[in-house]
């Protein structure tokens, strides 16, 4: 599946889009851990060091919904969708 990265994560990963293998229904956390393995520059910028939680204010969206409002890292990844990952952002 394709993972879209934004803001500072692009420079850290060296890409705006990263293709990561994922099985339908797999937990988002497993996909994100695979993302960090593929892009080591993201280590320490998306997940906590033990890989069990999102860092504060990092947002991961599936079909526009934050996984924080769903089942967190346990949220199953539906088939045929992208994941969008944002570092802490705000403005006004």
């Amino acid at each position: 599946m394709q993972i879209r990265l934004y803001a500072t994560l692009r420079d850290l990963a060296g890409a705006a889009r990263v293709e990561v293998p994922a099985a339908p229904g797999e937990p988002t956390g497993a996909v994100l851990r695979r993302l960090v393995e593929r892009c080591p520059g993201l280590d320490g910028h998306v997940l906590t060091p033990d890989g069990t939680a999102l860092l504060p204010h990092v947002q991961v969206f599936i079909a526009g919904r934050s996984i924080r409002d769903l089942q967190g890292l346990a949220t199953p990844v539906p088939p045929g969708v992208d994941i969008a990952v944002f570092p802490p952002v705000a403005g006004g």
Partner: protein
Amino acid sequence: MTLTGYANRIARIDLTTGEIRYEAIDPEAARKYIGGRGLGVKYVFDNGPEVDPLSPENLLCFMTGPATGSAINMSGRLAVCTKSPLTGGVTDSHMGGWSAARLRWSGFDGLLFRGASPKPVYAVCEGGTVRLEDASDLWGKGVRETVRILLERHGGSNVSVMAIGPAGENQVRFACILNENDRASGRGGTGAVMGSKKLKAVVAIGDIKAQWKPAEDRKAAFEAARKTSLKAIMEGALTAPRKGGLSLYGTNVLMNIINEVGALPAFNGKETYHPNAEAISGEAIRANYLAEEPTCHACPVACKKLVEIKEGPYAGVRTESFEYETAWALGVNCGLTDPGTIAKLLDLCNDLGMDTIELGNVLSTTMEATELGLVADGIAWGDAARMVEVTEQIARAEGTMGQALGRGAYGAAQWFGRPDLANSVKGQAIPAYDPRGIKGIGLGYATSNRGACHLRGYTVASEIAGIPMQTDRLSSEGKGALLKTFQDLHAFSDSLDLCKFSAFSMGAEEYAQIYSAVTGVPFTAEDVMRTGERIYNLERYYNNLAGLGEGSDYLPKRFLTDPATGGSAGQVSELDQMLQEYYAVRGWRNGVVPVEKLRELEIV
């Protein structure tokens, strides 16, 4: 009586007679309303809520807060308070840069202008005095030339100029005031009020040597507060200089995330997602157009982004700041994703003196009316050349259409015979978050005391960024209480007057520490929230007395009935449910402040 932390000097300038009087701040008013927005609103309130906004009787206040110009971080904000010609209610609009600090260093907490001059004038503030100078030679000039002339005339690096352009002179109802850094008191039509008074500019001459410093016995407390604010900013995930998203990309770091969740109003709100928004995002601007990253007094964040366009019909345009709101309003909201055109329109607004948010809504409303066949010689979606042409017509009040559109998006929609086409509340148009995709901010638009606005209660921090805690953006439950907290907190920080972005790394505890360190008044986080609540209720009371009573808190029908698209597909605002909860936590009766609440908060 000494008021620690203040200059304790207010100038009252009668522009009709030329008389200038000086007075101290009423200590009780300072205790209750702090400064900046709070104290400015109090002066506007005392002037009476029934005045015509564009009459000589209206009061126009340039206010600083007790922290302004000090070494406290993010303390470079200036509040312009008046009765708005756009909404008919009270408004406060804040500009950054160095104007606030220089006004304070010139010896004033605030300037209160009343009356109207028989000929164009500008005011010069220096060394605790104000004088009026002839501005006949400046009338008709753009902001840029006015600023250049006045900086040359008054010399030195200690001068700040706050000026209006032709839009203010022509009393375009969303005209704004800008300074030498292109920072604007953007919303609410403060520039139109200034123009109605024939006041072309305010020149503040003040050296940093006049910066307020604490007495010996307060130095430790002040330094601790300064370090608190600095540490919060430097370590804040969003604000950290050169690392945080706000610092690197400016406010426009929001473009992609708001589009991702389907809360980006596009084509005048007919859609809530635009497939090409990325082209005008903070990421794209930083990669392709960024020229400089200026900042304001006492701010290491440097969120302002100055852009330079190198190709296309607007090559050579160099302007700041390419904000999220501007990029949205003049961009996807108008069906346009060309950074060059947005920069050109922004540059025009900066020179002509107009609010980019309201202008974008005026243009998008006109585009929808054009699509519906309601206007001859209108504007097609994304027609860059026509947008530029109409923008200039509006500022110069040229022709029937230029004058009609100068009344704002709501006034324009009325002229088209379809007031429902305007995405406005109380006469002021919405900013860049769709109420269908971020429920709390919709309630915020409805209940804002200055018309649709994101800065009265920025629930987006919680609903999108998770600050201070994550709330579900699509849930309406609990949003009344959440919004009240944000509104009260911001009302206090706007009165100190700290930048709104301080709320991304500070809260009531830090604000209390700063206020206490500057003024010497013991203060708690609870005091911060109660004071903010008092200020918010004073504004509401003013609006109630000005005729904005029951039924004044609403959202345009589109947000209640037409489903969102993209990441918020199918969603509408559940405003009624949120309003009931909000009124309950506020203790209001259908938007009206009862007298018992006024007494409880010591307003009456």
